């Protein structure tokens, strides 16, 4: 005879917790929401205000300066295609989303990553959390995001930040831990304080690795755009989402290709930034 265990009400607990958070901290979440929305609108308006051709020239020049002519030519070709397909505005909205999400992720990830590199205990505490954040299906984050921040871009950024932050933390930690012990010893031997050691030796030497982490974060953020569209974020994702709902593969691919172009552009740009620093 099988013994029946009562089912553990894990879901109820989580829901209870989330509800409590939503009601107790609504002032905080509303504040964050407003701040983020202002940031999104500001950046979006600025990018939209620029005539499309001038933004195109700026991006091409940036590519040339940071990487090479080839990337600049590729960027122009890709962006002209997006413009031609009439996807310029959604592309800008997506870019805004990615930039803001990455900024927030990096601002949180750098100190956390540094702290985890310097404290073995924190490192051990934080690693499973990172695993959780990265492997939990990203859709799940959307559900609590809505009561916290409502439908729209802010919720999308919240989910995107959680999903895309782990590599930035991991790579920062890795980068600092990879600094050769002899160099850390050298800093110590000359009487460097923790701060001097960090800013004069550990951080500069881990910069290429940190940049690789940020690159990963950007890529993950981009991969979230379609999912973000489900809770009302504008941009290329919502074009794809609309195409799915209307069963129009042509439109879907067009928007999808625009995402790919944006992704390649951001990837190459950040990578060349990394090589320059290295």
């Amino acid at each position, binding site marked *: 005879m099988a013994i029946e265990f009562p089912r553990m009400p894990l879901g109820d607990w989580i829901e209870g917790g989330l509800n409590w958070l939503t009601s107790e901290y609504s002032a905080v979440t509303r504040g964050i929401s407003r701040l983020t929305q202002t940031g999104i609108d500001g950046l979006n308006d600025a990018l939209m205000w620029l005539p499309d051709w001038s933004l195109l020239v700026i991006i091409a020049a940036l590519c040339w300066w940071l990487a090479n002519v080839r990337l600049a030519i590729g960027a122009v070709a890709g962006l002209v295609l997006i413009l031609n397909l009439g996807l310029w505005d959604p592309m800008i909205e997506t870019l805004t989303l990615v930039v803001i999400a990455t900024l927030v992720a990096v601002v949180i990830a750098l100190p956390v990553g540094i702290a985890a590199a310097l404290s073995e205990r924190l490192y051990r505490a934080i690693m499973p959390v990172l695993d959780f954040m990265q492997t939990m299906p990203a859709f799940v984050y959307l559900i609590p995001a809505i009561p916290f921040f409502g439908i729209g871009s802010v919720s999308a950024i919240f989910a995107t930040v959680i999903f895309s932050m782990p590599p930035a933390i991991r790579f920062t930690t890795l980068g600092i831990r990879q600094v050769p012990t002899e160099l850390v*010893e*050298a800093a110590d*031997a000359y009487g460097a304080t923790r701060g001097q050691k960090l800013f004069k030796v550990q951080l500069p030497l881990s910069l290429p690795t940190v940049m690789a982490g940020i690159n990963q974060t950007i890529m993950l953020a981009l991969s979230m755009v379609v999912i973000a569209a489900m809770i009302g974020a504008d941009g290329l994702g919502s074009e794809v989402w609309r195409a799915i709902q209307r069963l129009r593969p042509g439109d879907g691919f067009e928007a999808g290709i625009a995402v790919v172009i944006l992704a390649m552009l951001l990837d190459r740009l950040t990578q060349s930034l990394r090589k320059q620093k290295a």
Partner: protein
Amino acid sequence: MSDNRNVKIRVRNLSKVFGNQPKKALELRDQGLKRPEILDKTGQTLGLSNIDFDVYEGELLVIMGLSGSGKSTLIRCLNRLIDPTEGEIVIDGQNIPSLKEKELLECRRRHFSMVFQNFALFPHRTVQQNAEFGLEIRGIDAAERRETARNALKQVGLEGWEDAYPRQLSGGMQQRVGLARALANDASVLLMDEAFSALDPLIRGDMQQELLQLQHRMKKTTVFITHDLDEALSIGDRIVLLKDGEVVQIGTPEEILTKPADDYVRRFIEGVDKSRILSAESAMRKVRSTVRDTDGPRTALRKMRDHSLDSIYILDRERRLIGLIDADAASKALEEGKETVTEAMTQDFRKVTREEPLHNLFAMFSENRFPIAVVDDNQVLQGVVVKGAVLDELAQAGEH
């Protein structure tokens, strides 16, 4: 000979246990157990055990041992890159193991510069910025530290390389940067951790010579770690020999070679080319007799006969060596009725200092028949080396 010199660092009863139960390991050590047994019983590694030695002001002390002897641990205990388990390390009245965090930083800045085996240069900084590092840490203003670092780079022969990055330099040059970084800092003690071990033999020899010259010029107290006995013998004023975390012998290179403390040291020194290390002092004998510059040839002849000598040194009132006269010249001078020995003396003989390596004396004997005089910096006669004594000394050293 060193007893009257100032002690810069005093190390007493220094021990280091690697592991989480150091007390237990030290108890077993006090019961007479050795490193392998302690490791077996407790899982603790006894890195250093009861180390006692002094570093004198201005000397170049070599700490020498094979890998696993604890020499790297020892040098890192001095500036507490590794925390010792027990014991004291006193520098200018400060006991380093009991310093608090802030005092320790201050102590490191003031007292220690370090040169590392694999250079440990900062790859993101130029040669100049590397050399400035210690000064920057101490908060010296930019203009002054640029000047000081520039001078240090000049001293190690790297003028004109200020803006290069370490990866653009050869190994030898990289280590010069390491040395410049240490010198620029002007700390009172220079710690060198296998500083030349990663260099190829030719460069290494050059660097050793340059270090000796620098050391001679600056009289900087230096603790030099090496696993290479030849290196230890050729640069060290004194050597601390380590084995399995314990001191086996402390002494000058000559003492180590001629009076090895035990079989371990004896086996160790078997491969060494002894004539390179032994100095004129070791083969020096007391001078049996001398004459004054005011003495006549007759006195010189009598003294030579009494002490069965072929020639005799002539000294002035301050016992400074001014010449030599042999029996033939003295007889001739007597016949010619000369008043003093100085009228018939010769300068055709060799003078060396106590430190002259023994192997240099061979060549001198082959070009000159007279004994070699050993004098100090003021030309005062200290002793004499005859050909037979050199060979004797080498033969004896070889027997050990």
